[in-house]
């Protein structure tokens, strides 16, 4: 059994399935610049330390992601055209109708997949990023690694000229800007649906005129895709995408939110992100793997919760990552466990009551795909433009998941997600009274440009503050 067999086993492949898939895997990894040593690192160190591989469901979920990563480099023989979008686009709802309109079109969110798998499993994200930095993404300007990954994939020739890159602009200037470089590089056709960010500090993120514009702009993006790809996206395709989104919400998303309320939580932050995020992704390989994996995972989690088992001992202080946890540095999660805090929660996806109710209301009542997408994007605090609304979302999350401290990953990796972080940290400390910290760490890749021991010292101090704060708050009732 070599590293590749081991990898497939850890990613939940059955023996027959693994044998059949191995040549594709090797071909894909080779093209994606993942060496045999990188695979060895993943199977010996990274995967076993950072994910709950004792859970079969979790292993299968990692397998879903691995398949998507390989698909970027090795399309099926039938796939003759490519349509991309980029994070934080809700790719499932947007790209799935395109896949339904013509299954020979490969749909993907390559930056996200390459970060989620290439960077997190194999620690090769820096290879893509460095390629982008050689060709116009100046390193000293500290642009977003995720977008550098996407551009780097083109620069390295891993991703060819794309037939339609229908991105979108909500909070992220870097994403739309990176698309310009991609267009310059290989002539990829780009189009940018746009959300205007003119919601006041304490305004209503669902303001009608703003939502309507965003929805119309998303629809305009689909029209462009139809033109460039020679397809027709029918109402049936859109309805099917909405139905799938609702099904994913009900069968995969909502149950996990409930499991994570248990003390101790049954999954760590790495597990959670990979289990939750298919809902936001355009899975070119389909969603059957995801649903099957979730069925198994949820049974396993039910047993764990019933038996009071979790990733940390009961009563461990619970810490949440503001918006997203840095999956590019997944070793941070076990490091927090070693320091006696359970940094296993993500504010961006573990919705509080207000957010969850609103989300389900939007999905269940959806009559128009684009309005639904615009509303969901306006709602999810990761993209919200009203800081007061974001604060309310944080407040509910902190209350519902009994959070004792907040880590806001630094401004460096993503100025658009984290630009509000100092304001929100201050609001949370002042109004809720839990400690917050902002370490300087990249979300999307591990560049190794900051010492792990420095991070350990910082988190150690923070862990002490959180523990003391928890005791104090409990004494004060």
């Amino acid at each position: 059994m070599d590293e590749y067999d081991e990898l497939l086993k850890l990613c939940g492949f059955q023996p027959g399935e693994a044998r059949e898939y191995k040549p594709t895997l090797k071909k894909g990894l080779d093209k994606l610049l993942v060496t045999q040593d990188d695979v060895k690192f993943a199977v010996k160190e990274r995967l076993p330390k950072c994910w709950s591989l004792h859970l079969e469901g979790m292993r299968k979920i990692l397998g879903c992601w691995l398949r998507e990563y390989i698909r970027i480099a090795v399309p099926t023989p039938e796939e003759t055209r490519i349509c991309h979008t980029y994070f934080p686009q809700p790719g499932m709802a947007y790209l799935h109708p395109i896949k339904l309109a013509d299954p020979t079109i490969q749909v993907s969110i390559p930056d996200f997949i390459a970060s989620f798998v290439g960077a997190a499993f194999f620690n090769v994200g820096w290879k893509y990023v460095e390629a982008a930095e050689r060709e116009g993404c100046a390193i000293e300007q500290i642009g977003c690694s995720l977008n550098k990954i996407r551009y780097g994939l083109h620069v390295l020739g891993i991703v060819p000229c794309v037939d339609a890159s229908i991105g979108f602009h909500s909070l992220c200037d870097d994403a739309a800007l990176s698309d310009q470089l991609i267009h310059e590089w290989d002539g990829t056709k780009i189009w940018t649906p746009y959300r205007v960010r003119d919601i006041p500090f304490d305004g209503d993120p669902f303001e009608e005129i703003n939502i309507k514009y965003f929805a119309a702009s998303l629809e305009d993006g689909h029209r462009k895709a139809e033109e460039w790809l020679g397809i027709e996206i029918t109402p049936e395709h859109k309805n099917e995408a909405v139905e799938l989104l609702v099904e994913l919400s009900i069968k995969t998303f909502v149950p996990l939110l409930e499991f994570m309320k248990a003390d101790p939580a049954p999954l760590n932050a790495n597990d959670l992100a990979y289990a939750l995020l298919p809902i936001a992704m355009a899975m070119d390989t389909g969603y059957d793997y995801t649903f099957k994996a979730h069925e198994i995972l949820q049974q396993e989690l039910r047993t764990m919760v019933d038996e009071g088992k979790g990733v940390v001992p009961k009563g461990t202080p619970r810490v949440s990552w503001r918006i997203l946890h840095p999956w590019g540095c997944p070793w941070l999660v076990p490091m927090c466990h070693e320091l006696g805090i359970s940094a296993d929660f993500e504010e961006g996806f573990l919705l509080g009551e207000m957010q969850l109710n609103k989300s389900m209301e939007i999905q269940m009542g959806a009559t128009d795909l684009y309005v639904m997408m615009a509303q969901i994007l306006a709602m999810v605090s990761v993209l919200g433009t009203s800081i007061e609304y974001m604060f309310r979302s944080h407040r509910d999350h902190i209350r519902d998941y009994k959070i004792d401290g907040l880590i806001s990953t630094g401004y460096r990796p993503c100025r658009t997600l984290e630009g509000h972080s100092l304001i929100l940290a201050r609001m949370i400390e002042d109004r809720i009274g839990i400690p917050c910290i902002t370490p300087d760490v990249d979300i999307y890749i591990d560049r190794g440009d900051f010492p792990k021991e420095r991070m350990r010292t910082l988190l150690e101090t923070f862990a002490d503050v959180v523990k003391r704060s928890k005791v104090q708050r409990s004494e004060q009732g």
Partner: protein
Amino acid sequence: MEAMERLSKCVQERPAELKRLRDGGIKVIGIVGLGYVPEELIYASAAIPQRLIKGGQREAIDDSREYCHGSFSTFHKAQIGYLLSGKEPVYNSLDYLVVESGDWNSEMVGMYVYFYRKLPTTWLGVPGNPEFDGALSYYITGLGRLRDRLEELTGSKASEEKLREYITLYNEMRDLLKNISYLRKHPSPPIGGLDFIKLNHYSFYCEPHKYVDGLKSVYAELKGSEGEYPADAPRIAIFGCPIAQSDYVLPRLIEDAGGVIVTEELSGGIRHYEANTKVHGDMMGNLAHRYYLGRARDVYKYPWGDELPSMFTRLVDDYHVDGVIWYQLMYMVGNSMLGYVVSKRMKEKGIPMMTIQSEYDLQGRLESNKTRIETFIEVVKQYRKRR
């Protein structure tokens, strides 16, 4: 130039002037952005616009650190520093803030100021996809809402007549700036880039009637004058990030080294003067057309297509540019990416291009920057000779 000196005093006199106006009950409206807020609308609403365009000082960056992350755009960090430190009299004189939404840095300046200073703020929606059918009407709606807020604030209506009056005045201002700038197309320009940029910046500090009168005198003086720069001086374009009012180290170094700056495109760092506003028909619609679609495209309007990169090559051709200096402020990522694209275009044209990066620290590294620029000017001379 006497007329220029007279205009230069408006910068020093601005705090006292704003105080006098505010004492008389006039509201001062600060503007953060790249030039999408029509000042004509603010004047017509009986308020005073104050574009926030100061920069170049390290102290402002240091002052911003208490409020925002270090890797926030240099220009915008400076705005936060000035707005929140209380040290800058003009920035202390604001009653209201209008922030353009369109580039994320500007939007965030508004958020910080609203949170820490509680300054009433409006975000004007500037859609980043101008080719989309609904974009212009969204911007028009935003302008309408802004007019309503201004009228509410001042109690004065921005009538069509008043709008037309200020539109006409601003058209005249832009025509004069354009005429002065075009004088630099001459082989021996009578004005260089440092003076032109300063002159342009004065427009943000001067009462517009007074400014237009001053510009007329400047133009009259320049039009009849001998060239200030020799015909063999290397003709330099500065492109890139905003050169803020008082951030003059780079243009000074270029012109001290024997070059002459003949054109610039500074991402909203100076007033756009090429396009004017129509004075017939619906004034608000006319303003929207000019300010949203009529002006030069900026880095935050997607997709760039060929329009944005070719704007730079056109300027190089029109002004017979020999060399380009890209002014790159730290953490303005979009401009940095655009700089890369433009550098490829310049390479194709055989025009040398150099990037100077700054976090308002050029003064602190004056000698090394001086050497770099002197060397670049020599290189440009060689290229020119070869051509």
